[in-house]
């Protein structure tokens, strides 16, 4: 029950600072380990050559893009249900980083698609829904910027985030539902992965690094938001 104590911005502020510091520090060695595994341990792919090494950025970024949206929607739901100020601030703090990872997933995917599929872009289900996700993030940020009162902005964006969360399962399952160009899932929680262990390790390390990075950035950003709103209120 101690968590309720942290629901107040004032008490959460120093905790956010500590989380930011430790997550930021932890992210660096994990990223270095991931990059080492990705470039020097994982073998060259038989069909794609060295081009496949983009996977160590592309897949973790895509995972983060979906994960961060779900977390954002979670805080949105909490904020609407319990009318807590901090929840809305958390959602706003996560949005830019989520949009960034979505863009990185799309960019790296495009650069990976050109040498392997022969095209920079294709309108298959997964790419299209990832692009929609980017627009959903932008819509969230645009709506927040358009509303003057921060509390009303938080609540309006919360409704928007929850309406958009339907897109996430569509992205995730799109490769199963529509048999199109983007490859199916090779990593699953239940089955053994169908890729080499070293490749998987590299991907997981990078995913962990991105996750810690996102937490650090979100904590710093929520502290900025707290300071900015306090300044306006005073």
């Amino acid at each position, binding site marked *: 029950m101690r968590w309720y104590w942290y629901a107040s911005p004032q008490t959460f502020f120093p905790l956010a600072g500590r989380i930011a510091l430790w997550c930021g520090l932890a992210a660096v060695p994990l990223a270095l380990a991931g990059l080492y595994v990705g470039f020097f341990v994982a073998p060259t792919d038989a069909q794609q050559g060295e081009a496949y090494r983009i996977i160590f950025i592309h897949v973790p970024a895509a995972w983060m893009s979906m994960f961060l949206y779900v977390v954002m929607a979670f805080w949105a739901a909490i904020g609407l249900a319990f009318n807590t100020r901090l929840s809305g601030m958390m959602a706003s703090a996560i949005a830019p980083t989520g949009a960034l990872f979505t863009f990185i997933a799309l960019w790296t995917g495009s650069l990976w698609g050109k040498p392997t599929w022969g095209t920079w872009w294709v309108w298959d289900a997964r790419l299209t829904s990832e692009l929609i996700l980017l627009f959903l993030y932008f819509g969230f940020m645009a709506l927040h910027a*358009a509303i003057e009162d921060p509390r009303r902005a938080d609540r309006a964006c919360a409704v928007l985030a929850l309406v958009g969360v339907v897109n996430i399962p569509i992205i995730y399952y799109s490769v199963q539902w529509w048999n199109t160009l983007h490859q199916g899932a090779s990593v699953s929680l239940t089955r053994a992965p169908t890729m080499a262990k070293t490749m998987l390790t590299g991907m997981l390390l990078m995913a962990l690094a991105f996750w810690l990075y996102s937490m650090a950035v979100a904590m710093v950003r929520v502290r900025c938001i707290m300071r900015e709103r306090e300044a306006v209120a005073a």
Partner: protein
Amino acid sequence: MLAAARTILQRDLLLAMRRRGDVATALLFFVIVASLFPLGIGAQPNLLREIAPGVIWVAALLSSLLSLRRLFESDHADGTLEQMLLGAAPLGVVVLAKAVAHWLAAGLPLVAIAPVIALQYDLPAVLYPVLALSLALGTPVLSLIGAIGAALTLGLRGGGVLLALLVLPLYVPVLILGAGAVEMSAAGSGGEAQLLLLAAALVFAAAFAPWAIAAALRISSE
């Protein structure tokens, strides 16, 4: 509850009838947008026949966007919206009635006019029923999702463009299903899957959108 719904429905339709200009403008926009594509792309019949479902659906999306602003704005301006928020009837029922009225005035005419556009694109007549059915199932979903956007952006400056930015990504699945139904039919494999999914989307939207619209209206009205 049903009495409230019927009252709101009749009221909104009456208001739409009095503002026939608005309804006609959106319809005219639909026709004009659909006419732009052959002018821009070149009028080869084979090409036009292929792109017809997509073009008609995109034009329907854009036309639907145009008419969304007036869903809540006039009520917001003269205080009726506040009365609805405070009134005895459940807000979800009220907004559902408003969305239905919006569809009858803005979406249903599109369904009626679409065969005329299809004629311009030389779409085979056998595809008209699928086209009309896909639009008949899809345009209510557009009205419902669009109402969420209209409620969220109520009274904001730069609202029209922001509304489009918020709502168009949510419209995309409906577009893909609707146009896909006609395209699959044209290819000979029947558009039943897409039509069924559209029907499911309609049920889902009718069930959940009123909650979102009501929540958004409360947020926008304080």
